[in-house]
């Protein structure tokens, strides 16, 4: 195999993110500023690339491992932006903290462009490994959270790798483009087992059932900025990983198997997440449990691949799932960021009573996010997310749409409780911090509500 030329321009956002990590280590007191500038540059580069033609690199024959198309670069920019937000709302300015964040962001940026199983899993690991350290707060609770996350993550990675290995053995390639034709010929049991393990493992990042139960525990005990990251950027990573594997790799050759696995995952997540959230008394616990349900909603459009009509248009399934994922992480980021702005830890829901009067700015963002997560106007971003998946499911898998509807109804019960506490409760005292960052998050949500095209356009997948 001859050595090939690498399209370095396509890798520019990744380079910038990696460079940011390196600079952060050495920048000392300016580390935070440097990190933020670097991430902004990385995001800007991604947007520039998104506006230009699609670039591909790292090819084996016709199969490219790295593709910088509009979708990938849009997502890369989103990763950069979310990490930027997390950096902005972090009180800590230590170099190593920012270094780890930037490394994780680099993983996310790579993930969006990856087109083979190895790149994808490596990217996911790059995204995840720094978090092992970040989630652990000093003290026994923090340590337990860190250990849980570490072990859970390793288990999941092992599961995913096992699945990847099985698929490799069935198809003889790890390239998504090669998987499709090969899997159609392979032994169905093997394909099914590989699909189940791979998707189950990757769904860990998304906190989808059955690998979901780390999320409430870890999110509750992690520092709030890191919880923000876990709930937004990290989940986006999980969503992308699953969607990419399914859309680029499995849909054509093993769509039915993948659809079935995803249907089980989606239904289980929606059920467990919503039901679990119903009795949560703590804010982060509620958001974490409901995040499990939202993971189910992200997977639900892909689950339609289990039906014949769903397999006719897999791109629509992936588009719907991705659109939902993006809207969802924006709302999660808004919710966690505004929470970070008013509290040091998550605390009980009651403690947010009357936040609306005590801190109108963050409370507004929190309300928009929570109502959006419930899918209701006037937080239209959430409504559009629901519309995106329901529109697809209504045409492809009506029963799955009903499951989503049922989940959303239960969801409203607890979101409404949170929203009304913030609005009408009493007792909260807060001195809001990070006003600019929270305001920016709010503005992004407002923009996504008024011009959903911003999100819907770059998340629409062709092929």
């Amino acid at each position, binding site marked *: 195999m001859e050595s090939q030329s690498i399209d370095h321009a396509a890798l520019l956002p990744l380079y910038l993110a990696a460079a940011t990590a390196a600079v952060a280590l050495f920048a000392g007191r300016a580390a935070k500023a440097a990190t933020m500038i670097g991430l902004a540059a990385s995001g800007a580069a991604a947007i520039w690339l998104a506006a230009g033609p699609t670039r591909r690199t790292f090819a084996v024959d016709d199969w490219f491992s790295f593709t910088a198309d509009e979708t990938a670069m849009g997502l890369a920019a989103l990763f950069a932006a979310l990490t930027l937000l997390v950096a902005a709302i972090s009180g800590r300015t230590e170099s190593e903290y920012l270094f780890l964040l930037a490394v994780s962001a680099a993983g996310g940026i790579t993930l969006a462009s990856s087109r083979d199983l190895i790149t994808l899993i490596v990217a996911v690991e790059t995204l995840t490994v720094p978090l092992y350290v970040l989630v652990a707060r000093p003290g026994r609770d923090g340590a337990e959270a860190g250990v849980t996350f570490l072990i859970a993550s390793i288990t999941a990675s092992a599961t995913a790798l096992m699945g990847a290995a099985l698929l490799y053995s069935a198809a003889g390639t790890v390239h998504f483009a090669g998987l499709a034709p090969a899997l159609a010929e392979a032994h169905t049991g093997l394909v099914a087992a590989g699909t189940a393990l791979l998707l189950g493992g990757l769904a860990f990042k998304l906190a989808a059932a059955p690998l979901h139960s780390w999320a409430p525990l870890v999110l509750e005990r992690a520092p709030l900025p890191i919880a923000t990251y876990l709930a937004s950027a990290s989940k986006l990573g999980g969503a992308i990983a699953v969607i990419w594997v399914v859309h680029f790799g499995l849909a054509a050759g093993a769509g039915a198997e993948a659809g079935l696995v995803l249907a089980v995952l989606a239904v289980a997540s929606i059920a467990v997440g919503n039901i679990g959230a119903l009795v949560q008394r703590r804010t982060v616990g509620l958001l974490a449990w409901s995040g499990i349900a939202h993971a189910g909603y992200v997977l639900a459009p892909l689950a339609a691949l289990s039906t014949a009509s769903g397999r006719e248009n897999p791109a629509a399934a992936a*588009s719907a799932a991705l659109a939902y994922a993006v809207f969802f992480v924006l709302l999660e980021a808004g919710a966690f960021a505004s929470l970070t702005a008013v509290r040091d830890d998550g605390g009980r829901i009651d403690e947010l009573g009357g936040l609306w009067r005590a801190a109108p700015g963050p409370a507004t963002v929190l309300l928009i996010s929570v*109502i959006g997560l419930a*899918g*209701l*106007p*006037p937080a*239209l971003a959430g*409504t*559009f997310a*629901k*519309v*995106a998946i*329901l*529109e697809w*499911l*209504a*045409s492809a898998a*009506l029963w799955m*749409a*009903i499951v*989503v*509807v*049922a989940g*959303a*109804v239960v969801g*409203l*019960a607890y979101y*409404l409780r949170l929203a*009304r506490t913030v*609005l*009408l409760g009493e007792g909260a005292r807060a001195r809001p911090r990070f006003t600019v960052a929270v305001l920016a998050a709010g503005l992004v949500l407002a923009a996504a509500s008024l*011009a*959903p*095209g911003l999100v*819907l*356009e770059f998340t*629409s997948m062709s092929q």
Partner: protein
Amino acid sequence: MGLILVAAVALPLAGAVLTWWLRRSGVGVAAAALALAAVALLPAARGPGWWHRVDYPWAPSIKLDFALTVDGVSWPLALLTALLGLLCCIHNARTGPPVLTALLLAVQGASTAVFLADNLILFFIAFEAVLLPMWAVVYRYGDPATRRHAAAKFALFTVAGSLLMATGLFAAAADTGTASLAQIIAAGGVDRDLSLAVFTLLALGFAVKAPLWPLHSWLPDAHTAAPTVGSVLLAGVLLKLGTYGLIRVAGGLAPDGAAEAAGALGVLAAIGIIVASLVCLGQGEIKRLIAYSSVGHMGFVVLAFATGTEAGVRAALFANLAHGLITPLLFFLAGALKDRTRTGLLAELGGLRLAAPALAGLLGFASLASLGLPGLAGFWGEAFTVYAAVERGGAWFALAAAAALGAFLTAAYLLRMLKHVSHGPPAPAVEGVAGTSRTEIALWSPLVAATLALGLAPGPLLDLFATGVL
């Protein structure tokens, strides 16, 4: 004229924001008045079929356009919404907090958008947008004892219904390739194989809102717990979203499915009429009684629609609108009564005829209208529901008989209510209550006048319905 369409939706919403921002109810009243003027202007320069239309793309990839249109079916409902919105704003401006005015305007704006929406996705979004402000009205300003429970029930039921409805809407949009209501109706609805499924989903959603028995159980709680203006809007506007959706959207998108499901729909509607009336017969609280009576009245609307005949659909539309005039009037009066006596229990009331003759007289008038006295608005829709069911013949005759019996039971429970409230010697709670003020009379008189006018001359409205696109 397109601009006026937009104004009809935008004015209440802008009014809501401004009222909330400035904390001044007067702003809200002005916005509601302007909105009423805008809606009232819509019939000017109208053509056949759809009168006017605006269409701005919003999010093409999810088929969402900001498309509004209006015709002879939707305009009366939009006008009713604007009228009730204005009355509620004025009512609230006298005593209530400005935030409540803002919420009322938000409900009004979103409801108007539902009636005028031509795009299915926009329809869904507007339908959902009604939920939160109304929830807040009930939760924040309702009866302290029951409001939490009632508000939660209302919200959960409604969202379940609207999401099921959304699924149906999206299935129809996917099947026909367009989300324009007008285009789908013109094309004769969705594919025959899909029709029943789409209709079932849509009907489930709208049946929650309408409400159709047995999906109604949120209604008595919500209507009872809501403040007076909330009950008025719930009964006068929100229920109409359900029936309008059922007739225009479900019937228009899936006519074949509607025909197939007609029997089930009719039977449920008839059960609703009878059961609601019987429940009212044993009801001891005036607002709850009026609330339950809505279930029966809307049963007539659904039954008339279910017959699928021309007369039936017109009767459904007429009964729908009449209920939107009469029941809000009843709620206004019950609210005035409860404000004065501090109780709504029939057992603690009595002798209102002697203590406050005008109030008792109006209550009597509204009750007679509600029980379908010929010559008042309530009669035409309900009588011709019976006609339409008889027209279908066969087993439908049993439904016609049930409806006619329901009308009798309606009279029975309303007279029972009047007997407890108006007649007899004045109860301690009623003694010395204030008479009706000029403002109150002015506030109620449009509803009284409209009830009388529609009762004596139903022709123009029926002709208007006949020009509508169904």
